[in-house]
């Protein structure tokens, strides 16, 4: 065709305001999944200090735990993990064909439950900094 | 230039069926269509497809019902061929996978329909036409048939012999909507017109916006007579703002029509004291309009169709799709309020004169579907008889065009089938504004087929260039005026003075049309240009309908005349024929054939 107009990726990013719940769920799931893989690699890297001896391992871990920023990041990790688990379960149900009519509600539920769990866990996570 | 054995113009039910049949007969066939096939208006049909499938039913009964419904203006060979072939066609559809509604034992369901002596209407939910259209398009895809979509055919490439019956059709010329190019299509065996109905001639119609009746006008200008154009069916319950059809089902279930005074109009004013709301389409349409004309309409436009008293449960169970229609297209909640309805143009019984094989009097030119008139529906069409018509006559036209082995047709076509000359009444001026410049195509007799197509391409190219490059009036006003005058003067009520007024308005529109031009200069997807060219066709058809209506001095089928409140069999058992005659329209008549394998004796109407 002689001249057609391809609105390209710019437009896609501009559309986030118009997303449906299912699309948000997808974005969040993706995001949380990536964070979790990222963490998995970091986690193993940190634990690798175990090969360098007992003292190094203990010091590294405790040293990290003393930093507020690490604690805050851990809360973040918790929220990411909880959401990924809950939404993951939601997706497993969707795969089995259950509750498709309520997919938006179950997504909202995942969000709310995640928030609740995270808020409830904050004291535990921040204890003793 | 594209070249194929058979070209099918239009890809609705009739076009698709014709293409499949031609393909099966071994021809190289291509479809040229203004819309992508699945956008065709066949998809809007809801009700069903009539076919005598049941062992207790028979084609004879179906033929008899159809003839009676036609008010004895159907031609027996057409009616009988139709009734005989319909069952095979329906089974064929089933074998192609059409999702018909089913009985418990897995067979196709059939339900009763108005005017039928046996429940013989097969259907697929409330969207029969949609399924029919898609099922056949699937078969076209399966066979790999070429489809040139979004190509608006502008005119036929026909030789210009003086005698219409010597002419030959060699192809068509189309406007490629996306690119703006003019394309020539040559057909070595035949061109089949299947362009559907002309609803846009009226300002209120159940037809699609694309239904501008291009096929009628193209065939007409090429010299093929138009038959019985005055027979237009109006549906009494359409939504005022869009023309969307509210099916008879609502009245069938007990829906009531009220006027502005909340009177039950069908009884209050005695339009149909026996049948009330269930009277035939014409009777109800006339009743509604009388109410409006006498000032008892709502907003001077429509009446109310109320189904609230049926109760939510029953409505949801039986009429759920109606609730959606009212909600989506009129913004009315049928559970809460009455629905506004008014009559709208629905179906054109008349059309391009063809025989049982879909052949016109021009060699190589065929027509099938709503655009054609084999004279199956005569003065009025029975519900559920149009879809099988698409199948039966689409298939026959396709096969014949592809050179398939078929019986000689019994119906005579062309001016030579004339029985009696007619006269266009004095004081009305019809036909081309400057007849003479309207010859068909250049020097057809002398030159070869390719050149006939080429020269038509040339002519259309000039026309399009002119419309694009020159300044002129917008067509929309012209089209609007035609639609208004047709609805005001040539709808369900037909009075001599009004018909003449309409012809005057049409004349004026023709004059104005000489100065139209598209104001969008673009060659890319120029819908302004498309619509401008369609308006030309609308003018020609409006005129043909009105001339027919003025000529036929009787009350038959859907055609009502104020001065002639009787069916006059002694004088009017004949078809109205209108031939373009290169711009000087000629009116004549052709006898009705009431004798086929069986004989059909006109009976008293009883509604």
């Amino acid at each position, binding site marked *: 065709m002689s001249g057609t107009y391809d609105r390209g990726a710019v437009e*896609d990013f501009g559309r986030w305001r118009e997303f449906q719940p*299912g699309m948000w769920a997808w974005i969040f799931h993706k995001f949380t999944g990536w964070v979790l893989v990222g963490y998995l690699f970091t986690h193993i890297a940190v634990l690798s200090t175990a090969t360098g001896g007992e003292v190094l391992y203990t010091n590294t871990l405790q040293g990290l735990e003393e930093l507020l920023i690490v604690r805050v990041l851990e809360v973040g990790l918790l929220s990411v993990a909880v959401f990924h688990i809950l939404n993951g379960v939601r997706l497993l149900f969707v795969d089995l064909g259950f509750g498709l009519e309520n*997919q938006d509600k179950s997504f909202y539920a995942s969000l709310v439950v995640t928030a609740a769990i995270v808020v409830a866990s904050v004291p535990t996570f921040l204890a003793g900094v | 230039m594209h070249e194929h054995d058979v070209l099918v113009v239009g890809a609705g039910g009739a076009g698709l069926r014709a293409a499949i049949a031609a393909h099966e007969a071994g021809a190289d066939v291509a479809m040229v269509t203004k*819309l992508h096939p699945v956008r*065709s208006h066949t998809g809007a049909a809801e009700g069903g497809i009539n076919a005598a499938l049941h062992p207790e039913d028979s084609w004879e009964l179906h033929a008899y019902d159809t003839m009676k419904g036609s008010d004895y203006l159907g031609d027996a060979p057409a009616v009988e061929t139709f009734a005989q072939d319909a069952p095979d066609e329906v089974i064929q559809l089933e074998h192609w996978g059409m999702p*018909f509604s089913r009985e418990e034992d897995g067979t196709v369901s059939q339900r009763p329909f108005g005017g039928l002596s046996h429940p013989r209407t097969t259907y697929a939910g409330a969207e029969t036409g949609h399924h029919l259209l898609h099922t056949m398009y699937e078969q076209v895809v399966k066979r790999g048939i070429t489809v040139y979509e979004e190509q608006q055919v502008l005119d036929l490439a026909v030789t210009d012999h003086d005698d219409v019956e010597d002419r030959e059709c060699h192809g068509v010329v189309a406007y490629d909507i996306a690119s703006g190019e003019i394309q020539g299509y040559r057909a070595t065996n035949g061109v089949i017109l299947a362009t559907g109905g002309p609803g846009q001639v009226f300002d209120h119609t159940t037809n699609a916006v694309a239904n501008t009746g291009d096929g009628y006008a193209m065939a007409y200008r090429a010299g093929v007579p138009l038959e019985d154009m005055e027979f237009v069916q109006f549906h009494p319950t359409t939504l005022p703002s869009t023309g969307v059809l509210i099916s008879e089902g609502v009245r069938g279930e007990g829906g009531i029509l009220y006027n502005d005074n909340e009177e039950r109009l069908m009884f209050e004013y005695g339009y149909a004291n026996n049948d009330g709301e269930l009277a035939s389409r014409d009777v109800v349409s006339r009743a509604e309009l009388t109410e409006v004309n006498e000032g008892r309409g709502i907003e001077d436009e429509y009446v109310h169709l109320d189904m609230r008293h049926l109760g939510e449960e029953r409505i949801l169970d039986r009429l759920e799709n109606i609730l959606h229609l009212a909600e989506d297209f009129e913004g009315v909640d049928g559970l809460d309020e009455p629905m506004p309805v008014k009559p709208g143009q629905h179906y054109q019984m008349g059309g391009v004169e063809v025989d049982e094989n879909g052949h016109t009097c021009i060699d190589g030119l065929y027509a099938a579907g709503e655009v054609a008139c084999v004279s199956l529906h005569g003065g009025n069409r029975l519900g559920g008889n149009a879809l099988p018509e698409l199948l039966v006559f689409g298939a026959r036209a396709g096969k014949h065009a592809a050179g398939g082995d078929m019986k000689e047709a019994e119906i005579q076509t062309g001016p030579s089938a004339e029985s009696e000359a007619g006269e266009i009444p004095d004081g009305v001026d019809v036909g081309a504004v400057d007849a003479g410049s309207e010859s068909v195509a250049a020097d057809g007799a002398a030159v070869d087929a390719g050149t006939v197509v080429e020269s038509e391409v040339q002519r259309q190219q000039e026309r399009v260039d002119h419309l694009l490059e020159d*300044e002129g009036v917008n067509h929309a006003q012209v089209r609007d005026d035609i639609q208004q005058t047709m609805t005001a003067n040539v709808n369900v009520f037909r009075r001599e003075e009004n018909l003449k007024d309409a012809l005057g308005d049409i004349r004026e529109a023709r004059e104005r049309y000489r100065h139209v031009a598209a104001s*969008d200069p673009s060659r890319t997807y120029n819908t302004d240009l498309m619509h401008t060219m369609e308006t030309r066709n609308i003018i020609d058809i409006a005129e043909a309908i009105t001339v027919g209506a003025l000529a036929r001095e009787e009350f038959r089928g859907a055609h009502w005349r104020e001065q002639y409140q009787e069916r006059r069999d002694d004088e009017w058992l004949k078809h109205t024929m209108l031939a373009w005659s290169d711009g000087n329209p000629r009116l004549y008549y052709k006898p009705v054939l009431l004798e086929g394998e069986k004989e059909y004796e006109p009976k008293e109407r009883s509604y």
Partner: protein
Amino acid sequence: MSTQIEQEQTEEQTEAEPAEEAEQSPQDRRLSEKKARAEAREREEQAREEVRDADDTVRIKVFRYDPEVEGKSEPRFDDFSVPFFKGMTVLDALIYARDHYDSSLTFRHSCRQAVCGSDALFVNGQQRLGCKTQMADLEGPVRIEPLPHQDVVKDLVVDMEHFYEQMEAVEPYFQPDELPEGEREEQRQTPENREKVKMSTRCIWCGACMSSCNIAAGDNEYLGPAAINKAYRFAMDEREGEIQKEDRLEIIEQEHGVWRCQTQFSCTEVCPKDIPLTEHIQELKREAVKSNLKFW
């Protein structure tokens, strides 16, 4: 020739434009030009009046683009005021704007009753059929754009070719293992089986679902929800038989088939025919897994 650059401008333009192109000269032509201008003015004037008289007017913002026309080759939005009436749809508003303000406003439409699938548009941020969307249900000004993720041909018209190709890639035609023997003998189908495929057969090829799907936007070869639904329609039809079903599952299991779907549900949300697309896609995934396990 006034292809509106901006709606406001038209009037000045038509008035200012002298009858300058005199080359084809004759009286006739100038007359018709004059008439044209007069009529155009009349129509606009009439529209203004109607807008003024109407109890209510609505504003629409319409995406405009035409590769060939100066001032339109860079996309922009045009504003139109349209008199409102009860029952008015988005399509009605567009038609009014076209017929009264700018006849070059281009969009596909035909049936006006949600069966032809021509007028899927992006209205206030969602894929919807223009003819099936009541203006009263929308917040104004109503923003009307062509379907996202498809190339725009002009104004609201997008190139549907790719969508059609995907639809046709799933062998969208009935292929029974065998047909009944006798003449006029139909294939039997239980009412339950018909009920099962019923929703899937309602698709009108409008392309709204495909346009709404993020995956389809990212992966051009993804079959997309409508085509997969089409495959579902046949795979689940008991009249076709087992052999054919295997073939069908193979098609939808291809590289860019069902596994691409990430259950975003936006297709299901926007489908004007309420087809449970995600459900159908998921069922096919399970069918595919099941049939593959059989061979193990």
